[in-house]
C-alpha cells in the first residue's frame, strides 16, 4: 500500500496553547481523506502545517516522500489548496485568475492555455470566463477557487470546507466534480457537512480538541460507535461518548 501523506506525531502550539496534539495518520494515494471536527478542533491548523503555511512545533510529515520542514519547496510543487475563504484575485477575470495561478507554477504559455481551457471545461466556467472574479456569486467564486488549486496539476489537493455557504445545488455540483477528481488526485477535505463526508470520503479522521479521536472508513466509524450514520457517529465521538 502506497501512502501519499504520512503524518507522524504532528504538534502545533501557539504560546502555551496546544492546538494540534501529536497526531498521526496516513492517506493512501488517489483517495479522499476527510478531516472532521467541530470549530477549533485543529483541522485547518493541520492543513496549514501540511501546506507549509504554518511550521509544526514538533513531529513531521511527508508528502509523496517530501518532508514538510526540510523539503518544503518540493512539497509546494506537488500540492495545492483551496482555502476556507475564497481565494481569488478580485479584479482579474476568471480566465486571468486561472492563467495567473498556472504562471506562478512556471508553466509555459502553451500549457497555461491548455490547462486553463481544461479547468474552464471541468468546472463549467464558460459563461463567466470573461467576468471579473469579484462580480461572481459565491458558488462561482468557490468553483474558481478550487479550479485555481487544480490547474497546477497537484498530486495532493487540500479542500478546506469547499462547500461552506453554498446552496444545495451548488454543493451537489461541487460534489460531482470532487468525485471525478478522486480518481486522479489525493484529496484532503475538511467539512462540517456530514452528508458531504459520508458521500465523498474513502477514509475519515475525527478531530476533537487537537487530537484524532477516531480514524477509519465510514463503516469503521459506524461500527466503532454502534451508530448507523456518520452524523450520529461523529456526535458520539465529538461529545466524548467513546
Amino acid at each position, binding site marked *: 500500500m502506497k501512502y501519499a501523506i504520512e503524518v507522524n506525531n504532528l504538534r502545533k502550539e501557539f504560546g502555551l496553547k496546544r492546538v494540534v496534539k501529536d497526531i498521526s495518520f496516513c492517506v493512501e494515494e488517489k483517495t479522499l481523506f476527510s478531516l472532521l471536527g467541530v470549530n477549533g478542533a485543529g483541522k485547518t491548523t493541520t492543513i496549514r502545517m501540511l501546506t*507549509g503555511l504554518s511550521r509544526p512545533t514538533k513531529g513531521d510529515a511527508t508528502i509523496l516522500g517530501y518532508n514538510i520542514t526540510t523539503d518544503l519547496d518540493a512539497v509546494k510543487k506537488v500540492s495545492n489548496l483551496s482555502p*476556507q475563504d475564497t481565494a481569488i*484575485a478580485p479584479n482579474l477575470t476568471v480566465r*486571468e485568475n486561472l492563467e495567473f495561478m498556472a504562471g506562478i507554477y512556471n508553466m509555459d504559455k502553451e500549457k497555461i492555455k491548455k490547462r486553463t481551457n481544461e479547468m474552464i471545461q471541468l468546472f463549467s466556467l464558460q459563461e463567466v470566463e470573461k467576468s471579473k472574479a469579484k462580480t461572481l456569486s459565491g458558488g462561482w467564486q468557490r468553483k474558481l477557487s478550487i479550479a485555481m488549486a487544480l490547474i497546477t496539476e497537484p498530486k495532493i489537493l487540500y479542500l478546506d470546507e469547499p462547500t461552506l455557504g453554498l446552496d444545495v445545488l451548488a454543493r451537489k455540483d461541487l460534489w460531482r466534480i470532487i468525485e471525478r477528481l478522486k480518481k486522479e488526485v489525493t484529496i484532503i477535505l475538511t467539512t462540517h457537512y456530514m452528508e458531504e463526508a459520508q458521500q465523498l470520503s474513502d477514509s475519515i479522521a475525527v478531530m476533537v480538541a487537537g487530537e484524532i479521536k477516531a480514524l477509519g472508513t465510514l463503516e469503521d466509524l459506524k461500527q466503532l460507535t454502534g451508530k448507523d450514520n456518520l452524523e450520529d457517529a461523529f456526535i458520539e465521538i465529538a461529545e466524548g461518548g467513546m
Partner: protein
Amino acid sequence: MRSIVFSKRTVKEILRDPLSYIFCLGFPIVMLIIMTIVDQSIPKEAGMEIFHINKLAPGIALFGLSFIMLFTCLQVSKDRSTAFILRLYASPMKSGDFIAGYTLPVLLLTVLQAMITFLTSVVIGNFVDYQFELINILVCILVLIPSALVFISFGIFFGTLLNDKAAPGICSIIITASSMLGGIWMDVDTIGGAFARFCHVLPFYQGVRSARLALEGSFGEMAKPALITFVYGIVIYIFAVFVLKRKMQQDIK
C-alpha cells in the same frame, strides 16, 4: 518568471480600479490646470513664481507619486487581508517574487504618470508661453524615480502593517504632509527658520527641489538634492522590504 507573472497581476489589479485613474492621473492634471489659472490671476508684481508652469509641473509630478503610494498600500493590505495571500504563500513563490511583483509594476506606473503630467504641462506651456526642453523633461522624470521609490516604500510599509481600512487614512496624512513640506504649494525657503530647516531634512523637499532644478537644466545644482533623495529612497525601501519579509515570516509561523 514568477515575479513577472505577479507584476502583471498587480498592474491589472491597480489599473482596473477606476479610482486609480481619478487620483493618479485625473487629480494631478486637474491641479495643473487649476493652479495655472490661479497663477494667471496673481499679479506679476507679487513676484510669486511657485505656480509658474515650470515650477508647478515637477511639483505636481511628485504630488502624483504620492497617490501611487496610496494604491500600492491598498494593494498590499488588500492582498494580505484575504485568503488569496494564503494561496500564494502555499505556492512556490518566494519573498523576492512578492517584493519585485509589488515594486516593478508600480515603478513603471510612476514613470508613465510623470510622462502624462509633463505632456499636459507642455500643452499648458503653449498657452502660457513657456517652452519646455525635452532633455530637461527626461532628466526630470529620471530624477523623480528615487522619490517614486520613497513613496512606493511607504506604500509597501503601511500596506504591510495596516489593513485596507486604516491604510487610506495614514496615506492621506503623508500625501498632505509631503506636498506641504515638499514645497509644492508654498515656498518653504521664503518661510525660512526652523520650518524650512525641518523641510530640508525630509526627502519630499529634496525630491521637489531636484526635479525643479532638472527641469531648469541646472544639472550640477541638481546633483545634491537628487543624491539625498536617492539615499532616502534606498534606505526606506530596504526598511520596507525588511518589514514585509518579516511579516511574511510571521504569517507562516
